[in-house]
């Protein structure tokens, strides 16, 4: 074999800690190495030229690159090799940056380690085979999970590009949290007014197939060719017959939370405007008697016998947009949220000031319906909290929506005394700082740097015990309404969805992007994309931008007819296989099948994890590009 070795300096990233000249020199000791060179930036045009020219000049049959992680530039270098006529799988990378330069301080030790890693790569390349990628067909249809503003925007963009989209929303209506908001910062435009047209567009778009009150149950397959089972929950209302008149709602005798009936439409502008029966509170489902809605419904749309329905569909790409929830406040007893009706969360405040909310937009106290004389907003409830009961991160939107709430309260009743307890006010964003300053300067909202330690109900009022950190003294007061900016967290189903999509989640349960800077809307799993709050705290403009970006990525994938598949998949050596099927049992992707006395791998399903090769007792299973012989050769080289 004729091997060329190329050592990268990565500016000073590698060179400062690894003696590049020394390893370039030493690697020539191997008789198979016919050329070796160092270069400041191998990934740059000049570096790639060096490699392609060397392949031609020295007639190289294998290349070893000593540089950064293959996650960074494997594709770059393999493309360069292919350009020069070398099979790209005859190129190996020794990671001497992340695994040497960046983790060691001692130059001598780091250099020795880099040399060992390079030798291992040389040992591996000697046993390499040329590999050829296959092709797989792309199903030209996308799935979006979650119908908040993120999912709505993504679905619309994909549909506008001409591809069919299925939008799955678990609740009876799309809209998500934005549909519950009154106004939106920093412009104070009415949330419903800007959202409803989009919701209607989704419902009427010929390319969008809306599944509300539905959940994804199973995901199989791979990029370009997913097979997904969706469960459409029994709504107990026939969507084809319902006219959305609402007669059933008037007839239902049940009064639940927020005055919600057992048969309900989440809010006035719901899309679709078709009610659902909550079987847990419905009298007929509980006691077998009632059916008043059925009698009231003229078009005979009520159907108590409806059952869950399952549909299976193929997709080329999937977007997760499952959004967020506010944290539960059970562990924050000091704020008296459960003990006092007039201690509410910001989302509840949003409903109270919203014209389509339970009070018709009247700013009144939940306890007695009176207009509060004083409102105290408390920020960072559970955010920036590194203890077990809180969330270590900043929820990002609370500073801005609290300023919005304070302004809204003052707009409705200028005489209300409004105060905000904060730790820091964070307003990075276009027109954000100006908006917050308006709350202070124009509306006279009192901002107090400090936190509240206790809220106690007392004679129909609330006594708060707080700190004014700038006065360095206690700030104890009697107030009428306390609004808690509870931390946000990923929706409770995010984890389940992530598992089905094999999409990683971070320590806080948010779906992780493939790269925090350069691949912000892709999941590490090919064909899976993310947008909105499911990926981390963000406001509506950011959510929409991310949704359009994810849609753009999906469109880029769906326009292709074929995808090239990774040839590094498992392969059975039939002569050694006893057909025991252990490999099939361990394969997480269901890619291995047992056939008579042997096994076969479906290369399209195989993700190249290598689990089967470890499980196989006779060594018949091999991962191409990472064969057992290659791995043992690498280990020998490292230990030698």
């Amino acid at each position, binding site marked *: 074999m004729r091997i060329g070795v190329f050592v990268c300096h990565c500016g000073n990233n590698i060179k400062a800690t690894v003696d590049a000249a020394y390893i370039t020199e030493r690697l020539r000791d191997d008789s198979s190495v016919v050329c070796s060179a160092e270069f400041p930036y191998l990934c740059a045009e000049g570096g790639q030229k060096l490699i392609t020219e060397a392949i031609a000049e020295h007639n190289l049959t294998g290349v070893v690159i000593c540089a950064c992680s293959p996650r960074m530039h494997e594709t770059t270098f393999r493309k360069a090799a292919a350009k020069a006529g070398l099979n790209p799988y005859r190129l190996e990378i020794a990671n001497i940056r992340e695994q040497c330069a960046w983790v060691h301080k001692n130059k001598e030790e780091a250099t020795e380690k880099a040399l060992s890693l390079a030798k291992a790569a040389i040992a591996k390349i000697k046993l390499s085979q040329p590999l050829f990628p296959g092709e797989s067909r792309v199903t030209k249809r996308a799935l979006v999970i979650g119908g908040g503003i993120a999912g709505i925007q993504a679905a619309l963009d994909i549909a506008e590009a001409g591809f069919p989209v299925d939008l799955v929303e678990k609740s009876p209506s799309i809209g998500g949290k934005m549909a519950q908001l009154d106004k939106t910062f920093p412009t104070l435009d009415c949330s419903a007014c800007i959202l409803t047209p989009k919701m209607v567009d989704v419902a009427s778009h010929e390319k969008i197939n809306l599944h509300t009150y539905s959940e994804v149950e199973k995901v199989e397959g791979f990029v370009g060719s997913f097979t997904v089972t969706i469960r459409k929950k029994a709504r107990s209302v026939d969507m084809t017959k319902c006219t959305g008149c609402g007669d059933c709602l008037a007839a239902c005798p049940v009064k639940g939370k927020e005055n919600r009936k057992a048969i309900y439409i989440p809010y006035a502008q719901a899309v679709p405007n078709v009610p659902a029966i909550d079987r847990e509170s419905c009298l007929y489902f509980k006691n077998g008697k009632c059916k008043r809605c059925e009698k009231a419904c003229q078009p005979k749309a009520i159907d108590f016998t409806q059952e869950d329905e399952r549909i299976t569909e193929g997709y080329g790409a999937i977007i997760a947009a499952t959004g967020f929830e506010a944290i539960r406040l059970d562990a924050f007893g*000091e704020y008296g949220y459960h003990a006092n009706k007039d201690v509410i969360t910001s989302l509840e405040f949003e409903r109270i000031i919203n014209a389509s909310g339970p009070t018709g937009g009247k700013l009144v106290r939940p306890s007695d319906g009176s207009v509060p004389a004083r409102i105290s907003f408390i920020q960072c409830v559970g955010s920036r*909290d*590194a*203890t077990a009961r809180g969330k270590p991160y900043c929820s990002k939107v609370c500073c801005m929506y609290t300023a919005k709430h304070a302004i809204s309260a003052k707009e409705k009743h200028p005489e209300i005394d409004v105060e905000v307890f904060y730790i820091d006010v964070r307003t990075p964003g276009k027109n954000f700082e100006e908006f917050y300053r308006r709350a202070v300067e124009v509306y006279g909202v009192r901002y107090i740097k*400090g*936190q509240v*330690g206790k809220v106690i109900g007392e004679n129909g009022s609330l006594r708060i015990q707080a*700190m004014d950190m700038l006065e*360095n003294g*206690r700030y104890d007061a009697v107030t009428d309404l306390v609004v808690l900016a509870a931390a946000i967290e990923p929706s409770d189903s995010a984890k389940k969805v992530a598992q089905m999509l094999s999409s990683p989640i971070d320590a806080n349960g948010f779906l992780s992007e493939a790269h925090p800077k350069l691949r912000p809307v892709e999941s590490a799993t090919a064909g899976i994309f993310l947008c909105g709050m499911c990926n981390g705290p963000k406001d509506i403009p950011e959510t929409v931008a991310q949704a359009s970006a994810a849609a753009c990525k999906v469109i880029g994938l769906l326009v292709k007819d074929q995808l090239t598949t990774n040839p590094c998949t498992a392969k059975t050596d039939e002569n050694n296989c006893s057909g025991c099927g252990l490999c099939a049992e361990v394969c997480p992707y269901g890619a291995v099948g047992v056939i008579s006395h042997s096994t076969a791998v479906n290369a399209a399903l195989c993700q190249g994890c290598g689990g089967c090769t470890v499980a196989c007792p006779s060594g018949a299973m091999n991962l191409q590009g990472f064969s057992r012989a290659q791995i043992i050769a690498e280990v020998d080289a490292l230990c030698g």
Partner: protein
Amino acid sequence: MMNNENRCMLCGRCSAACPMAARMDLPPHMWVYRTQRGDPSSVRKADAIWKCLSCLCCEARCPRGVKPAHVAEEARAGQGYILEDVMKRVDENMPQQLPVAALRKARG
């Protein structure tokens, strides 16, 4: 967890929760702040550390896992008001208030 004062973000929740803070010359978050700034001696001089009840409410409320009451305890110990035999008997299971009350009495 180590009582790392640098974790404090000066939210004031400890002082807002403390039942004695209104009567203290230096509220609990300031003990943490002064220690953070390398000035533990001023904490030792404060009368507040003798007002602390060791109820640990400040520590339960702190969102960053800082332990203001322990700063006070150290400050009290730091000026030699340790009754050797009392401290010898301090064990993990003993309520915090016990040795503190004993120390306070010993101080007169």
